[in-house]
């Protein structure tokens, strides 16, 4: 039977079968309902105050016990402004994690992580600015409503977490086992009479308390205690919020990048490939190659293959100086741990990946490169490709080395949020390379560099790299150095919040 005949035959289904209006309407209604229930600030994950409020309010009381909670919910419905500060407990003590501010339809979330990954998010009229204070750059884009930040008001924000209507958060949590809610008299807090609302979910080892102002029925602070977390929040409602706090001009010299315009410009610049390779998994076009001052090479390639499906990716690299290059990883635009908003950036309809190569030792940047390709996923998560069954070479010439360590497109494509990760992974790649070859001295040196870098990026990673360094020292017979490292490793592990999650902190009120 010929293809054409089959297409005609199956075409009868296409012409005679379609979704009924009933089904279409039902799905459209559900879609609309879900959009209206979208939670704000989910992007900031557990950092956002929203989560804390949600955690407390999801536990709704039995009617007889709920009068006070109802009073509080009603009071919250009328708030005009809000400032909520969230604190987390670490083995080293209590520290401020985020400040969430709302007034006049504008939301601001500022994180206090203490590393270059700190960000301030400002959302107004469905436009979001992501300000990076380290670079003094703000990315401006329209929210795409894919489940992150919604265009909501403070009233909706509060109601979101107090809604007991069908399909609301209550529905999502009502099957989560036994709940208990109690009201108790509270202490006099800064001269104010208070009461406390207590929530317990014993089967989940969850306990929350909200301290509420007796006069205004608005929360003053709360405390959430779970198996993994101890979180406190402090609230200020209806206080004047400085306009400067809600202004997208983030400070002197701040550069604002219009993501739409800049993406379009970049895609046009990369529209003409500088090289192409093909295999059974399809065609990959190379769009750009750049090298930085210390010899790290960034290659942008793109393919029709959807993300997470096989494609040809750069796998090996050599240059005119016979420098030995190691592949660090393939990075996907926007694929960073701090940002998981879908990035729709495409070049000529193709999904780009940025492959980073590092020389075994930093040195003079190369200029003329030969790139070999292998089959990989290009998903930014795995080291190296799955297979190098289609090795082939492309000769490419890079422009003069870029300033600042990274190509200029890195901020737009949000590689800047992986800056630290890329550098740390670059150093780690070198260390592994030497270790695999039994060169423990050089491996120890690069593991140490990685650990020092992580101290300012992700501190909980530090002891891992120090352990690797200590292993190398032991193999070299440097037992004194290894013992000293072990002391430091023990100290760091003792304060690692990932190891010591359940601190059982007492409630302060």
């Amino acid at each position, binding site marked *: 039977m010929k293809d054409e005949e089959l297409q005609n*035959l199956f075409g*009868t289904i296409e012409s005679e079968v379609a979704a009924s209006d009933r089904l279409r309407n039902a799905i459209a209604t559900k879609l609309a309902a879900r959009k209206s229930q979208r939670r704000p600030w989910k992007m900031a994950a557990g950092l956002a105050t929203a989560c804390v409020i949600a955690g407390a309010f999801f536990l709704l009381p039995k009617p007889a016990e709920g009068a006070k909670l109802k009073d509080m919910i009603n009071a919250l419905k009328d708030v005009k402004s809000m400032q909520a500060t969230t604190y987390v407990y670490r083995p080293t003590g209590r520290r401020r994690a985020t400040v969430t501010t709302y007034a006049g339809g504008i939301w601001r979330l500022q994180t206090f992580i203490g590393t270059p990954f700190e960000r301030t998010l400002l959302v107004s009229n469905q436009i979001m600015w992501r300000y990076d204070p380290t670079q003094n750059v703000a990315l401006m884009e329209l929210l795409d409503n894919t489940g992150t930040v919604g265009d909501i008001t403070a009233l909706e924000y509060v109601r979101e977490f107090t809604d007991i209507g069908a399909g609301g958060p209550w529905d999502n949590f009502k099957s989560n086992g036994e709940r208990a809610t109690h009201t108790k008299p509270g202490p006099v807090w800064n001269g104010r009479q208070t009461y406390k609302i207590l929530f317990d979910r014993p089967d989940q080892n969850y306990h929350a308390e909200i301290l509420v102002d007796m006069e205004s029925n608005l929360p003053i602070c709360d405390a959430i205690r779970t198996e993994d977390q101890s979180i406190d929040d402090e609230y200020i409602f209806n206080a004047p919020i400085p306009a400067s706090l809600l202004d997208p001009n983030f400070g002197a010299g701040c550069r604002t990048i219009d993501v739409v315009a800049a993406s379009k410009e970049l895609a046009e610049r990369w529209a003409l490939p500088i090289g192409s390779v093909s295999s059974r998994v399809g065609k990959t076009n190379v769009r750009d190659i750049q090298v930085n001052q210390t010899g790290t090479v960034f290659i942008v390639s793109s393919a029709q293959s959807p993300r997470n499906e096989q494609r040809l990716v750069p796998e090996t690299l050599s240059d005119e100086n016979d420098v030995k290059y190691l592949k660090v990883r393939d990075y996907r635009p926007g694929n960073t741990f701090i940002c998981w908003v879908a990035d729709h950036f495409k070049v000529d309809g193709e*999904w780009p990946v940025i492959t980073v190569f590092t020389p075994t030792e930093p040195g003079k940047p190369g200029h003329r490169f030969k790139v070999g390709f292998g089959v990989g996923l290009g998903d930014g998560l795995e080291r190296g490709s799955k297979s190098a069954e289609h090795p082939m070479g492309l000769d490419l010439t890079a422009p003069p080395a870029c300033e600042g360590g990274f190509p200029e497109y890195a901020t737009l494509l949000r590689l800047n949020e992986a800056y630290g990760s890329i550098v740390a992974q670059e150093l780690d790649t070198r260390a592994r390379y030497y270790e695999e070859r039994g060169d423990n001295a050089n491996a120890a040196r690069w593991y140490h560099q990685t650990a020092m870098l992580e101290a300012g990026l992700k501190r909980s990673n530090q002891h891992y790299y120090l352990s690797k360094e200590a292993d190398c020292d032991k193999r070299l017979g440097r037992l004194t150095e290894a013992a000293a490292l072990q002391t430091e490793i023990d100290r760091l592990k003792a304060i690692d919040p990932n190891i010591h999650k359940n601190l059982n902190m007492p409630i302060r009120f």
Partner: protein
Amino acid sequence: MLEQSEPKGIGEVRERAMAQREEPLAYLDDVVRYAFARLGSREEAEDVAMEVFQAAFRLRKELPNKANPRLYLIGIARRKIADQARRYRRQRGPVTVSLDDPSAAEIGFETSSRIPELMQALDTLPELQRDALILKYLHGFSVSEVSVLIRKSPEAVNSLLQRGREALANRLVEPPIELNLMRRMP
């Protein structure tokens, strides 16, 4: 209250965002047709489509990341149909075809329609052959896309298509006895 003016260049993104909001519904017909081709019943196809879209809503953050949302949704539909078949088998034992089953003679098509004949012929094919043919000729997916969906190598998909085409041609030329019996029914 602070007033915010809309920055330049944002209009295009706004349009894109609006389009994305409605995007999943653009594939509703595809999902219904796939489920219909697999199940042979409009009603069951719509039930499956509803389940598919409910699942897609739950995973809605993933959908915009998919380069081919249609492929993604059909993939969900495929799993839902497999789940349904498993449930059906658990409830009713081995699948049997009854001439009394109204779904076997789909109601609501013109008498000249070849759909009932096609559905009957498809129903006699092994599941993977049937699936490969539907994905290829109803939805126009490439061999590599079909291979992703049914988790077989492209070579295996080509083989399934080849055998499926031959089998389907034979069935359509010489309808199975059940179909002949059905045609004789008043």
